[in-house]
């Protein structure tokens, strides 16, 4: 009788433990220890880090615009780079990406989220780059947990060929409620911003965002945040690929209203606004707008007066998307492009 009473709760607990164990199957065991108990645990952490270091370091890059330095990590073989919004600080800006071996590539910034400090950058016309895969996990599968062992890589203080990028060991020391950002005690400094944080399975879990006031508290934007959906169901990743400037927060300043440039001149006619001149170097001309085209609508709205168009442009900033509907020889044409800088 006694025996029976005893074995029931044990069976339940063992079952619970078993389920727990299968759920966290790929998690290294040391992540679930409060601290390493034996030197073998320390060695296990060291071995895990070393087994992923070379591959992950190759994908880590220095990003510079000549004036400042940041870091980033290549996530596709054709050169898509994840970095921080305060590193690119804007959309469609020119950068140089420096690989670990010193090779330089041209790059342009894509979209960003200035509220979480996430950004994408595209290396131009280079194939077969070293890269790490990034996982598009739904929130229910966020695996990063408090206390997980992690390592950071970055070009601390800028590119230094003889030094190479710098690796640092640490743990996740704070998780924020929405899982978009977290902190680690990997020591960071200026120049590391935008660089990658990996867990001990070699999976990219975050991007360095801010250096903390104290040395053992530094902020990262979670990889998960890059794939979050907004209230309209749009994925942040897709919007960044489409060069969208999201959020209006401290990490990147929005271009001011009125800074957008379309590059067309119009006259008022009885039928509406007609294109009379084009800036050949501007996007409207390159996209195929021609002199004589009749402007039917912009972003779905009809404009009949030049003053109305001027006040529309006063509200538009560089990088904003416009869709022009035009009539040419009784044919309706549609052009969509992003405004350039005036």
């Amino acid at each position, binding site marked *: 009788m006694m025996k029976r009473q005893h074995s029931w709760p044990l069976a339940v607990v063992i079952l619970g433990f078993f389920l727990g164990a299968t759920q966290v199957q790929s998690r290294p065991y040391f992540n679930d220890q409060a*601290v390493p108990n034996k030197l073998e645990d320390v060695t296990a952490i060291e071995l895990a880090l070393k087994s992923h270091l070379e591959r992950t370091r190759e994908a880590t890059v220095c990003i510079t615009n000549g004036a400042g330095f940041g870091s980033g990590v290549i996530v596709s073989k054709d050169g898509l780079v994840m970095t921080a919004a305060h590193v690119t600080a804007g959309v469609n800006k020119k950068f140089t990406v420096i690989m670990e071996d010193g090779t330089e590539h041209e790059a342009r910034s894509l979209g960003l989220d200035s509220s979480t400090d996430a950004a994408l950058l595209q290396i131009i016309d280079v194939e077969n780059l070293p890269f790490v895969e990034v996982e598009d996990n739904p929130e229910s599968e966020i695996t990063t947990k408090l206390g997980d062992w992690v390592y950071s890589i970055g070009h601390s203080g800028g590119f230094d060929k003889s030094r190479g990028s710098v*690796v640092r060991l640490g*743990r996740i020391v704070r998780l924020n409620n929405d899982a978009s950002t977290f902190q680690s005690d990997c020591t960071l400094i200026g120049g590391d911003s935008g660089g990658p944080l990996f867990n001990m399975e070699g999976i990219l879990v975050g991007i360095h965002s801010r*250096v903390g006031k104290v040395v053992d508290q530094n902020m990262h934007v979670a990889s998960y945040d890059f794939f979050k959906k907004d209230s309209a169901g749009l994925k942040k990743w897709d919007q960044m690929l489409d060069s969208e400037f999201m959020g209006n927060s401290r990490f990147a300043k929005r271009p001011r209203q009125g800074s957008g440039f379309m590059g067309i001149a119009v006259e008022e006619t009885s039928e509406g606004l007609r294109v009379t001149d084009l800036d050949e170097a501007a996007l409207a001309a390159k996209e195929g707008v021609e002199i004589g085209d009749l402007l039917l609508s912009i972003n779905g709205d009809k404009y009949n007066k030049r003053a109305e168009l001027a006040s529309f442009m006063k509200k538009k900033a560089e990088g904003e998307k416009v869709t022009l509907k035009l009539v040419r020889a009784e044919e309706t044409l549609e052009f969509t492009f992003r405004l350039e800088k005036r």
Partner: protein
Amino acid sequence: MKNLLITFGLMAGICPLSLAQGSLDSELRLNGKKTLEVFSAQKETIQNSSAVIYRGYKRVAYGVVMSKNGYILTKASELEDQPATTSEKAKRPAVKEVLPLSIRIGEDKVYKDIKVVKIDVTWDLALLKVDAEDLSPVDFIDSSELSQGTIVISNGATSRSERRVKVGVISANPREIQGPAPVVIGVMLDEKKAGLFIQSTTKDGAADEAGLLAGDQILRADMKTISNRDELIEVLMSKQPGDELKVVYVRKGEEVKCSLKLMARPTASRSRRMSRNDFMSGRFSRRRDSFPRVMQVDIPIDDKSCGGPLINLSGECLGLMIARANRAETFVIPAKELQKVYAGILSQEAQTDGNKSE
């Protein structure tokens, strides 16, 4: 036993979930108290084979115990009499006393009679000697092939009797850290198309003492032809204070030979201009450049915690913690180079002693 199993099962299954949000206790972080408990064997090595160096009551550096009979290597520039901060000046306005050095090793060994055997400005090393017989010197191991990510241990905080440790990893490629030459000749230079000229001389500097004047053109240094600043600096890089530099200069169309006695670059004269990264780096070393070769680790120490040994998990010594460069970077002189400097000084000393006794 069954109860133990139950507890373990619960912890493994539930603990990570309950920790899903919030903050990790500071004791559990990489350099937290509880994390460091696993390094008890390494702590023992640090306890016995590192020295704590005080000036007056203040700790200024750690040191590496090199021999049973009391040779200790440490960071030289931290032994210099430090300029008082403004607040200290206010407290002690007129008194300018150089406090004596003292050293603690292990739990209770205290040494007050310290001989500064030699200062090597190239590496910023000082060899000290205390009168001892049975110290535990470090065991060196060649660290040149160690891969990045290797876990390493150094001195952390200390009480009078107990050393503590800090942990980190080897974090970048070993390399030279460039910087100004460790010696100076005491001139402002003017680089012209026609060659390298002296713009002005520092009073009582090496050049001034040798009779050099503003307007003189430096033609050769130690037989090497000099046409610009970099060529002169290259000659100076391998020099120690007190070394001679043979200079040929041109004055009023005539070549003149002279010999300069080189002086050490004062640590205080090193650039104090703070970069943005320096401002977030806390207390870093005043001398953190001009090292022929260093390894790099991520152990977060401060300027007064340099000079001690870096050891691996087996307790073997990989080098000497020579500089806190900034918040993310700490420099270490590799074991091989350290042993070479040490052997060099000892053989020099033996020669000098031999000459004395003749």
